[in-house]
C-alpha cells in the first residue's frame, strides 16, 4: 500500500521545476488577487461570492489544474520515452501510479484547494461556512481529477485533448443541458460535498451527498487501479 519515495521525489522535482511552478502559482495567485479585488472594490453578498468561486474555481480552475497536474506527472515521460527507465526498475506498477498520484494530489491541494479556501475567506470571511465548504469541495474535485487525468495520460497519448473535451464539453455543456449527465460530473460531486458543509440554502447541488461520495470514491480507486494495469502493458510504439 505504499509509495516509492524516490519516485515521489523525482516526480515532485520535475513537476515543480521552473516554468510549471510559475504557471500553477500564477493561477493560484490570480484567484486570490481576484478575490481581493472584489472584496475591496465591489459589494459582494455571500451568494455572489459563492457563485463567483463556484464558476471560477470549481468550474474552471480545478478541471484545468487537475488536467495539467494529472497529465504532467507522467505524460512528458511517456511522450519522450524516458518512462522506460522507470518501468525497467523492480517497482510495482501500482506503486509507481500511487507515488505519482501522491505528488499530483498534493500539488492540486496546495495550489488549487487551499487558494480556493483562502479566496472564500477573503471574500466572505467565515460566513455561512462558504470558504470551508468550497475548500473541501475543491479538495475532493482535485483528488478525483488527478486520478482521472493520470489514468488518461497512461491510457492514451492524446490525454490532454480527451481531458479537455471532458472538462469543457461534458462538464459544462452536457452537464447543463442533460440533467441525467450531472450525476456523472465530478464538479457536481464536489458541489454536493460543499453543500453539506455550508449553511443550508447557500449552495445547491443536484446530486445527493451519499451518491456523490460513493461515486467519487469508486472513480478514484478504479482510476488508480486501472492506471496501474495500463502501465503494465504500456507499449512505446513509434510516434503519432
Amino acid at each position: 500500500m505504499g509509495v516509492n519515495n524516490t519516485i515521489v521525489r523525482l516526480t515532485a522535482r520535475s513537476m515543480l521545476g521552473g516554468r510549471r511552478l510559475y504557471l500553477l502559482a500564477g493561477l493560484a495567485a490570480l484567484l486570490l488577487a481576484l478575490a481581493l479585488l472584489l472584496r475591496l472594490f465591489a459589494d459582494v453578498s455571500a451568494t455572489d461570492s459563492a457563485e463567483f468561486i463556484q464558476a471560477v474555481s470549481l468550474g474552471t480552475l480545478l478541471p484545468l489544474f487537475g488536467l495539467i497536474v494529472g497529465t504532467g506527472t507522467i505524460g512528458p515521460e511517456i511522450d519522450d520515452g524516458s518512462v522506460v527507465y522507470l518501468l525497467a526498475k523492480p517497482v510495482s506498477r501500482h506503486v509507481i501510479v500511487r507515488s505519482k498520484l501522491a505528488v499530483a494530489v498534493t500539488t492540486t491541494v496546495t495550489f488549487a484547494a487551499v487558494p480556493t479556501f483562502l479566496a472564500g475567506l477573503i471574500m466572505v470571511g467565515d460566513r455561512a461556512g462558504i470558504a470551508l465548504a468550497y475548500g473541501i469541495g475543491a479538495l475532493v474535485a482535485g483528488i478525483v481529477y488527478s486520478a482521472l487525468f493520470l489514468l488518461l495520460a497512461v491510457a492514451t497519448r492524446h490525454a490532454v485533448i480527451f481531458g479537455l473535451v471532458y472538462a469543457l464539453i461534458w462538464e459544462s455543456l452536457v452537464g447543463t443541458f442533460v440533467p441525467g449527465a450531472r450525476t456523472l460530473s465530478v464538479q457536481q460531486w464536489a458541489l454536493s460535498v460543499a453543500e453539506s458543509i455550508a449553511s443550508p440554502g447557500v449552495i445547491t447541488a443536484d446530486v445527493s451527498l451519499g451518491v456523490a461520495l460513493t461515486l467519487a470514491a469508486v472513480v478514484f480507486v478504479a482510476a488508480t487501479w486501472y492506471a496501474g494495469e495500463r502501465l503494465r502493458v504500456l507499449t512505446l510504439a513509434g510516434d503519432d
Partner: protein
Amino acid sequence: MQPPSDPSSASSSASSSASSSGLSSGPSPTGVIHDIGYRGYDGPRLGRRAVARALFVHSLRGVFGIGRSAKSKVLPVGLSVIMCVPALVLAVVTVIGAGRGLLDDVPLDYSHYAMVLQAALAIFLATQAPQTVSLDLRFNTLPLYVSRPLERPDYVVAKYAAMTLGVFLLLAVPLLIMYVGALFAELPAGDETAEVAAALVGAAIYALVLSGLALLIASLTSRRGFGVAGIITTLVMTYAVATALQGVVGIDNDDAVTAGWLGLISPMTLVDGVQVWALGTDPATPAGPASDATGITFVLVTLAVVVGCLGLLVARYRKVRL
C-alpha cells in the same frame, strides 16, 4: 588514390552517360523498368512569394487535417461538424417557426454564435494551432525550411494566415447556414444581410485575434500537449474570470461602466466588445463597452493584440536556435 573501383558504379555511370539524353537504356528482359539515369532540372524555380503561398496552402490543409493521417482528421473535422450542427438546427427552427408565425427573427443573434460555441472553438484552436507550429519545432524540421529560399518572417506569416483563414471558415460557414435559413424563412432580407455581414466581420476579427494568441502560445513549446493545455487555460480562464467579474460588478453592483471595461481581459469578450461598439451588435456578455472611450480602447487593444502576436512570433522564430 582512386575512389573504390566498384564494377556496378562503373557500369551505371556508363549507362547513365549513354542514356543522358533521356532515352531508355535498351530493352530489359521484363521490358517494364528503364533506368534513365539522373535528369537535371531546368524548369522554373519560383520565388519567395510562391513558396510562401505553397506553405500557406499546405498549412491550411493541415489545420483541417486534409492530406494527413485519419487520426489527425478526427478532431478538426469533428469540431467543424459540431460548429455547424447548431446553425443547421437554428436555420430549420427559423424556417418552421417563421412559417407558423411564431418567429420574426433568428432565434440566436449571428454575432453571438461564436461566443455560444466558444468551447468547440477553443478546442479547435487548442489542438490545431500546436499542430501547425509545434510539430516543426518538435521534430526539428525548421532548419530544412530556413535553408531554403523561404525567409523566417515568410514562414510565420504563412502559418498565421493559414490559421486565421481556417478559424474564419469555421465561424463563417455556420453563419452562412443560418443566413440561408433566414432567407428561406422570408425574413426581411435587408436586415438579415446587414446583420450577417456584421457578424462575418466580427468572425474575421475573432479569427485574427484568436489565431494570433493560439499560435504564439503554441510556438513557445515543442511539446504539443503543453501547447494545447496553455491555449485552453488561457482562453477558458480569461473568459471565466472576465464574465464572472462582469457578473458581480455589472449586475450585482450595477456598475455597467466598469463591467464594460472588464471585457478587455479576455479575447472572446474583447472582440465581442469591438463588435458591439464598432458594428452595432448586441453584447453577448453581461456588459459591453459603455462609452466611446471604452469602445475606441477596445479597438486599439484588438489591433495591438494582433500586431503584437505577429511581431512576437516573428521575433521568436528569429531567435530560435537551429
